[in-house]
């Protein structure tokens, strides 16, 4: 099989499985228990927290473990705004029109709750303009959430630059209008897709909140991290035994937490080497795909993740392509409506200015550490035949 959908999820690394293993049945204790098995579990959780903190260049107490990327995004967003619910219409939040649904649908909810929401528009490559952000900032802006790298087209946003703009706005233009607290607007980024490839040094990024997800970094599913800068006040999403500083109640997922830390450690170790290797594969694969007539690259040609290629094959539809590849044991993803629950084509491809017909024919290939040039050559061969076969029966004239 050739798995080219690593943006959907990654296989769990064998070393990660090994690291997690003993925390299922052997060291099964509840970290809140004071006796030995509890202390062992607590120790594992805190060691994992320190590992993650070191990789992000932050303090261990700034790392919160959650049940995944979606939960981290929700905790970041609603954790901030729920403190202002009673005066929602007095406040403003900013995000982009190409966020992952975990952020985008949360912001739609903010709109319904009465908050004033600005959706920054991406350009034709999936880039958000810092100038647009600067223009959108207001004295009553509570929260800015901009993804680090896009999950569909892989476009990388200038997070460090945006971080500086927000920091500057906080200090210069704003006279502590929100609760006399100079930490607003708070800056959140969803770094789920960026994590295996881009710089996660918090100091460099200048973010207040950052989301990570185990299942995109060869770790387990249903485990995530929210980095939360010390001075940021959040309200929990739910209440219970006050684990994770009271921000994420519920008995810790000890094996998941151990697995997450191991996974992040492993991707960090190989980051430079993998970036170099995948970049070469990406550019080769892109070049070859674009030799197919009537194909378009979606996203930025350079400012994109090294493992992401997103191409539209005009006049044919993505689900058909996907199923033909599936039959050959090649697994990819599509932005076609026919493959979505909403029956709308990819809103990200549409946001890039493509028409719906082109969005229906968009295909996403996301490589992983197991992807080889041989895999890509086989894929190219199958794709060329598939595209040609489907075009032969397409009602749209080429």
């Amino acid at each position, binding site marked *: 099989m050739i798995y080219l959908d690593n943006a959907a999820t990654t296989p769990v690394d064998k070393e990660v499985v090994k690291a997690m293993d003993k925390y299922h049945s052997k060291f099964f204790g509840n970290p809140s228990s004071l006796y030995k098995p509890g202390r062992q579990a607590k120790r594992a959780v805190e060691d994992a927290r320190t590992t993650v903190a070191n990789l992000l260049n932050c303090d261990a107490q700034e790392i919160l473990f959650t049940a995944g990327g979606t939960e981290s995004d929700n905790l970041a967003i609603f954790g901030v705004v729920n403190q202002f619910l009673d005066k929602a219409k007095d406040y403003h939040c900013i995000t982009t029109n190409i966020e992952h649904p975990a952020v985008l649908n949360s912001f739609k909810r903010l709109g319904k709750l009465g908050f004033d929401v600005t959706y920054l528009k991406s350009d034709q490559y999936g880039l958000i303009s810092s100038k647009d952000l600067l223009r959108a900032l207001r004295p009553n802006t509570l929260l800015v959430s901009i993804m680090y790298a896009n999950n569909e087209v892989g476009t990388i946003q200038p997070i460090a630059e945006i971080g500086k703009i927000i920091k500057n706005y906080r200090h210069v233009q704003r006279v502590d209008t929100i609760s006399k607290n100079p930490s607003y607007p708070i800056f959140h980024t969803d770094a789920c897709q960026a994590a295996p490839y881009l710089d996660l040094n918090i100091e460099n990024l200048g973010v207040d909140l950052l989301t990570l997800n185990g299942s995109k970094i060869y770790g387990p599913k249903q485990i995530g991290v929210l980095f939360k800068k010390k001075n940021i006040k959040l309200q929990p999403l739910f209440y219970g035994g006050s684990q994770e500083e009271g921000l994420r109640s519920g008995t810790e997922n000890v094996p998941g937490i151990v697995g997450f830390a191991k996974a992040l450690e492993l991707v960090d170790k190989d980051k430079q080497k993998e970036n170099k290797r995948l970049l070469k594969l990406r550019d080769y694969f892109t070049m070859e795909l674009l030799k197919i007539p009537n194909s378009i690259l979606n996203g930025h040609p350079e400012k994109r993740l090294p493992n992401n290629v997103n191409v539209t094959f005009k006049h044919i*539809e993505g689900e058909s392509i996907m199923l033909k590849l599936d039959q050959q044991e090649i697994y990819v993803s599509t932005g076609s409506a026919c493959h979505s629950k909403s029956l709308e084509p990819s809103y990200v491809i549409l946001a890039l200015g493509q028409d719906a*017909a082109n969005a229906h024919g968009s295909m996403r290939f996301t490589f992983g550490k197991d992807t080889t040039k041989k895999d890509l050559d086989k894929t190219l061969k199958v794709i060329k035949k598939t595209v040609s076969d489907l075009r032969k029966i397409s009602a749209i004239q080429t």
Partner: protein
Amino acid sequence: MIDKNNQQNNWLYTDAVKDHFFNPRNVQYNDPKPGEFNGKGTVGSPVCGDMMTLWVKVDKKTKKIKKCTWKTFGCASAIASTSILSEMVKGISIDDAIKITPKDIIHKLGGLPARKVHCSVLGDKALRAAIKDYINNK
């Protein structure tokens, strides 16, 4: 008619859908020759994600469909439903052909995932358009 085992959240296609998707019948690969058909219908649009053209050759004496070919832009269920329709109409009268409903096509396919039903079964409309075209051209 939705396959009971093929509920809302299930993406599984039946064997008939897969068979017709992977081995489509009666595709009009090349432009038809003059006189090869006497009716043509196109429905759907690229923007909606489904579009199909269907050609029919109707026997003027018997009013029976002698030949039906097609081209489809769309997902697997759109392709399969047009393919199976082209087999269903062969040899039947145009009076019977215009009575074919999406339900009949889906039944023949052994069911479709629920959310595919509305968007991807356009074949009956394309067929009616082709028959209408035949009648107008008569």
